[in-house]
């Protein structure tokens, strides 16, 4: 079953991507087109920005969930991260549209308090895409980092501090090195998931933030050019594969797998 619906489609896709009209030259033709390069750059760079922001913010949240002694704080943090997680991805984007629109909630509010004089362009650009993606991927970074932090003995930090290290120094020299593999692993996972995002760039991005995903969709459904879509998909797949490969070299397969669980 997995063979039929995972391996076969991908093999077919590779065949089609490297098939007519130009065989292997399809790929080089792809890279010769500057619009394709822009799309690739935007996709890989935006996903990277998103991954870094998600993991950085996720780490702080996960750390606080881990160390706080007040149950209320922990419950509030967990709820605020995970209730939106299950809201439905299309609906989240809907919420962002309502908030960010030209006459949306945020612009209205800012106009009403006279902070701005004309509405800000908050939507249909890179900013909106990154914001929307972070919103959706944050839970994916909080969960694994929480698991990582919990496996670290909190007494180690206390020991460092009682030996005279400042809290900052304790975090930098004890906590960070211990959790570094976890950090790298969850950044990788968030990055790879982000590369595959389709709806967010389509609904929040608009023309100024072209993502590989929306290009492929247009290739298939507007230009009926499946080969082109297959080539882009192949490039994306290879990119993601490379990232995973490099990451598994650095932090080990087990670590990557643990992050998923």
């Amino acid at each position: 079953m997995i063979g039929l619906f995972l391996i076969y489609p991908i093999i077919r896709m590779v065949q089609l991507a490297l098939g007519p009209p130009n065989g292997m030259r399809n790929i080089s033709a792809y890279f010769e087109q500057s619009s394709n390069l822009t799309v690739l750059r935007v996709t890989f760079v935006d996903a990277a920005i998103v991954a870094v922001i998600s993991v950085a913010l996720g780490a702080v949240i996960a750390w606080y969930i881990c160390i706080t002694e007040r149950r209320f704080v922990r419950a509030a943090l967990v709820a605020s991260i995970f209730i939106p997680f299950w809201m439905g991805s299309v609906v989240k984007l809907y919420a962002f549209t309502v908030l960010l629109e030209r006459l949306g909630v945020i612009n209205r509010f800012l106009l009403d308090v006279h902070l701005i004089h004309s509405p800000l362009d908050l939507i249909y650009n890179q900013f909106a895409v990154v914001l929307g993606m972070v919103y959706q991927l944050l839970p994916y970074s909080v969960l694994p980092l929480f698991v990582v932090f919990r496996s670290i003995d909190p007494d180690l930090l206390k020991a460092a501090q009682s030996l005279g290290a400042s809290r900052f120094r304790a975090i930098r020299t004890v906590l960070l090195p211990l959790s570094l593999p976890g950090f790298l692993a969850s950044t990788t996972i968030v990055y790879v998931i982000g590369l595959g995002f389709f709806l967010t760039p389509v609904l929040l991005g608009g023309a100024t933030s072209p993502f590989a995903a929306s290009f492929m969709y247009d290739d298939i459904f507007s230009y009926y050019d499946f080969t082109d879509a297959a080539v882009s998909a192949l490039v994306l797949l290879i990119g993601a594969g490379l990232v995973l490969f490099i990451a598994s070299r650095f932090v080990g397969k087990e670590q990557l797998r643990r992050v998923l669980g």
Partner: protein
Amino acid sequence: MTGTKTADRVLNMTGTTVCILVSLFMLIPALTVLVLSFAGGSQLVFPPTSWGFQQYHTVFSNGIWLPAIWQSLKVGMPVTLIALVVGVPAAISIQRSRIWKVGLLRSLGLAPLLVPAVAYAVALYGAESELKLIGTYWGVVFADTMLVIPFVVLVVEAALTRIPRDLELVAMTLGASRPRAMIGITVRLLVPAIIASFLLCFVSNFDESVFINFLSGPGLITLPKAVFNSLRTGLDPSITAVASMLMLLSTVIVAVAFTLRNTKTVS
């Protein structure tokens, strides 16, 4: 000393601020939707000028949402069941057998999670159009199944590590046949994990919005697809009501799933 203390205080304050800001960032969109769902009128205005249950009423009375919800359920059921039928034995063999293929099988089981969704959707589109499955019910079901199998494998495998293998051996020395020991002991102890993965699959499939756009054609409209369509054509306020109900329902289901997942399988 005072230097480090100031630094620590700054650190603490930054941490707290980040926490508060992130929580707000996560909650504001959700709350906006929730608040708007109780607004009256057919225009989307914030803050709402009137209040009421009109949006909820629209959801149940106009002909878009109910069929879409029904379609989602019709896709979700077989998807989850097939995923369990494939995933549970896969997880058991990954965990319990010592053959060389285990690593390969495990990677295969998890692969759909790691292949970028769009690239996978394009590949599936190619394969399914050859097999004439585009726009068909089973085409969508099979594609969605692939996407949720990893959840089953992950959850069941994790639960299996907590069930001692010896229990099965004990049953066998007491005279049970191998299949009987397997089903009577291991599978029975797995029941909470299986229910948990069932719920997780179901909820995440209910939200599947990438494949459906590539594979469903015009005729097959699930809930996410319906929301997507209405988003593209303009902002329909009754989405807020659908979303609020979805949020509530998924939160409850997921809470149940996680409780089951964490149930001690062996006392």
